[in-house]
């Protein structure tokens, strides 16, 4: 008998991300990585002295920064990607429960209900998207020095510097949490996670 097309395959794995979504993440991560490394070489005096070559480093930083939103914008063409953006956007009552537990440092799975994305992931995604665009806008003001009067540029530098430091800390948290959870990393690397992990970490996740 031919199996019905909508019958889910009987495996121990669950599909979490499509190929396109994983490439969106990979290219965004690579561009962000270049931004962070070049930023350190431009900003930290010891690294700046070690590396020098300011014109080259500035060019790398500017173009990787400018390209940073491109993978996400390209990803919008994918239905699966748009569906996940919708999931990241919407917060339900369980997200409030999750955030309260996180604030109390309560790590029990029962007190951290989550659907496909937990409340922390949702906050991270929304914030880093906004912060990236603020970095882009202030960065463009510093890049094109004829665009705005100097007072604006001084202010843009101020926001760019402090937000860079904040983003560095938040990104370190993002990477640290991924390092602590191999199955979550497998989800982003291969697209699949074990059913057991999904029901433990994302008990409310239904396709």
């Amino acid at each position, binding site marked *: 008998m031919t199996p019905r097309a909508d019958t889910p395959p009987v495996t121990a794995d669950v599909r979490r991300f499509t190929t396109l979504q994983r490439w969106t993440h990979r290219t965004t991560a690579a561009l962000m990585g270049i931004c962070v490394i070049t930023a350190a070489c431009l900003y930290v005096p010891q690294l700046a002295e070690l590396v020098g070559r300011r014109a080259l480093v500035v060019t790398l930083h500017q173009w990787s920064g400018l390209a940073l939103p491109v993978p996400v914008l390209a990803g919008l063409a994918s239905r699966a990607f748009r569906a996940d953006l919708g999931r990241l956007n*919407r*917060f339900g009552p369980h997200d409030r429960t999750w955030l309260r537990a996180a604030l109390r440092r309560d790590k029990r799975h029962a007190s951290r209900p989550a659907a496909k994305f937990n409340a922390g992931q949702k906050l991270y995604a929304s914030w880093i998207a906004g912060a990236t665009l603020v970095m882009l806008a*202030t960065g463009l003001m510093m890049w094109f020095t004829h665009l705005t*009067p100097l007072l604006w540029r001084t202010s843009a530098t101020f926001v760019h510097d402090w937000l860079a430091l904040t983003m560095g800390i938040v990104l370190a948290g993002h990477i640290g949490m991924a390092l602590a959870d191999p199955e979550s990393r497998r989800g982003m690397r291969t697209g699949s996670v074990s059913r057991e992990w999904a029901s433990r970490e994302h008990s409310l996740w239904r396709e």
Partner: protein
Amino acid sequence: MNDEHPEERGTPIGRRVFLGTLALGAAGVVAAPPLQRGLEAFLGGAADKDPTGLTGLLPNGGGFRYYSVASSVPRKNAGSYRLTVDGLVARPTTYTLDALKALPQTRLVRDVQCVTGWRVPDTPFEGVRLSRILDAARVRPTAKAVRFTCFDGTYTESLTLDQARRADVLVALRMQDKDLGHSHGGPVRLYVAPMYFYKSAKWLSGITVTDEVRPGYWEERGYDIDAWVGRSNGRDDDPTS
């Protein structure tokens, strides 16, 4: 339906966080001047009591930033440093560091202003007026401009002869009442007080009088040649001179 898709009818908090971050960023740009003054005062106080030096890594508009366009810059001291003056002059000259120190010194206190935005208020520079060095070399009548070269092997700058003869243009030996360190362009750098700081070439090693202005390193990459603070690169606020 609701049980299966707990997020379908949820509140769009993600969008609010996203838009809120954008709004905060815009507010940060608007509120930056007072915020920056407050933070500088606070961090300045904290840095005095900080034995770890970590506060030095925090973003601080009140500090210098290290810029070098070369891959590495050799170190020069009183023994190895030379400044050559040549081109359209009757008396080409080479100065040692001691010879420069023996000339009359001028001290100026102005704001250092980088074209990208950072500034270091009330920074003292001390050195020999460039006009004195040019006069000593006897500039020929056909001369129109001055080109500066640096011992990093890459950086160049330029001024018209009129700009170079201003009283607020120095061949600087000291900054913040200390001898110029290597990272600040020592032992000798140019200091062009009325212009953006990219004109103040670090690691100065050559002064060549020419018959026309030749664009310097950053000027070939888009910055204004006449880099008056207040009248160039899109700026319209108070000049530094």
